[in-house]
């Protein structure tokens, strides 16, 4: 995001330099608010110098953070289960297949697969069931080429419901696997 913004600012600045102050005024007038104006006048004098170190820092931590965010967004889709079941539905398999692609694309990242259950089951059995649910996803992803070393399993049983309600609608949301970037 930042890189794009800086790039567009650079282009705008280039235009300013080429057309001179008069043109700049004209451009500013045609823009919606004073914000653009302020930005231009602020960066006008020593634009090139601070821009360079910013783009260098992006190649390190920020790019990784960006990638992490993108990967998490792509992995954010949860998959859902029937009551007392850890069977993957065809829809879940599709979701997992795209997750496998994401994990191949972002090979730097490992994930935690969280298994969750609804409140209808009892606590200890649900902890075991949650593990089976997470494991079902892990095995499927493993078959698609993701090594088990990149996947950690945590079963929360019914301790962390997504929806605190007591209806089938809430329960069906809570019987799920969540996928989170670990590192």
């Amino acid at each position, binding site marked *: 995001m930042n890189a794009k913004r800086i790039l567009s600012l650079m282009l705008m600045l280039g235009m300013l330099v080429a057309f001179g102050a008069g043109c700049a005024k004209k451009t500013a007038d045609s823009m919606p608010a004073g914000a653009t104006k302020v930005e231009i006048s602020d960066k006008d004098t020593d634009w090139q110098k601070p821009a360079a170190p910013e783009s260098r820092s992006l190649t390190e931590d920020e790019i990784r953070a960006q990638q992490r965010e993108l990967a998490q967004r792509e992995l954010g889709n949860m998959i859902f289960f029937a009551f007392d079941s850890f069977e993957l539905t065809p829809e879940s398999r599709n979701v997992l297949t795209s997750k496998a692609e994401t994990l191949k694309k972002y090979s730097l990242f490992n994930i935690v697969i969280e298994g969750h259950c609804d409140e*209808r089951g009892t*606590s200890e059995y649900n902890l075991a069931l949650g593990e089976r649910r997470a494991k079902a996803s892990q095995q499927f992803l493993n078959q698609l080429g993701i090594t088990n070393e990149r996947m950690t*399993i945590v079963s929360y049983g019914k301790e962390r419901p997504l929806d605190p309600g007591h209806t089938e609608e809430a329960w069906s949301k809570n019987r799920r696997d969540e996928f989170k970037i670990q590192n």
Partner: protein
Amino acid sequence: MKLKIWILTLLLVLASGESVRAAETLSVDIFGPGQTRVNILVLPARGVGGQAASAVARSFGEYVQGDIGFLPFLRLAYLTEVLGGDPSKGLKSDEIDFKPLQLSRIDLVMTIGGSGANIEARVYETFTRKLLVGKAYSQVDQSGVPRVADRFCAQLMRVLTGKSGFFDSTLAFSKKVSGGKELFTASALGRDLHQVTHDGGFNVSPSWSKDGRQLAYTNISDLGHRLGIWDRGSRVSRLRRFPGNIAISPTFTPDGQIAISLSLNGHPDIYLLNSDFKASQPLAPSWAISVSPSFDLSGRKMVFCSGRLGGPQIFMLDRNSGAVNRVTYDGTYNTRPSLSPDGRFVVFARLTDGGHRIFIRDLVVNQERQITFGPGSDEDPSFDPDGYFVSFASSRNGGTKIYVTTRYGDPARLIPTGPGDAMAPAWGVATALD
């Protein structure tokens, strides 16, 4: 709470020659077929020498009556049931007119005397006029009254039934705190509430060692499942990771080992850990989920929950023969069993149309009976050390709280545990923390 009282317990061998010989007097068989209920009348507290009773003595009387309310084999009678009102002029048998009590079918009568920080309490059997329990307590301050009342009632229960596990136990349970769950302990009446763990994450499934010195539990966090052991002596807990993804339902065996569900072979099986926390061969292994082991006092019988035949059901392992027998056949979802110390009864949670309910199965006569009735969900049943009371967690009044009933399904009583959801009660034979 540090109580600064010295409880001097004195058997009052009274000048009139009364003797405490409970064996020859009234006793209550709490395990007999069909419970008998004994009527007990607690007379208003008296002062010494015609003076008004002290505040401590009056408070003691109120706490005793509250405690008696937890004992389904006793029924609190009211003074209005007695012809002519209070039939006593003093605290001792020669100052009590037992006839109106007998006419009103009052079986036991209790007198309470108090001056300053001293309390005297006596329970007489009205038909024989015999003293069943007589105790004196000195230097009791107001904050110590509940504990003194509990001690007296423990003695009364012991004399009447031969058991007192309810009063002598400490409950451990899991309680919601900000961002997770931690373990707390309290007496069976909810007194002396303490938070004992501060691990972060979710601490669930506490189990006491038989000597009451340790608690085993599961800690769940982003790091996965870990076995927690809290030590009463040092007040410190240690967390251990195991290979595989789980460490569910750790349970102490009577000889001090820990049985725990681990997935060492890719599926949850129950293992016994040695003193180095190494797992041996699984108990009653199968390809399916096995969790929630519970042992009898011999440690040779183990009930557990398993999905080996489809949905979760209760099974029993005979560790001598290795035989595994199915215990529950009705219902499609039976979980979280607790075996009575004598190995005869199993309580468990069954999913019904109205939510989970606690059922009890008599393994000798093969009969099953529902002992809790909601509403909401009743889960996590656990036998007390006598095999008479059953604690459980219920959402019957909104949030989840701990209740106690008996194996006969007596009306459930709330055990106060303060604000916040509380669940997974476990009985320990240790006395309350101070």
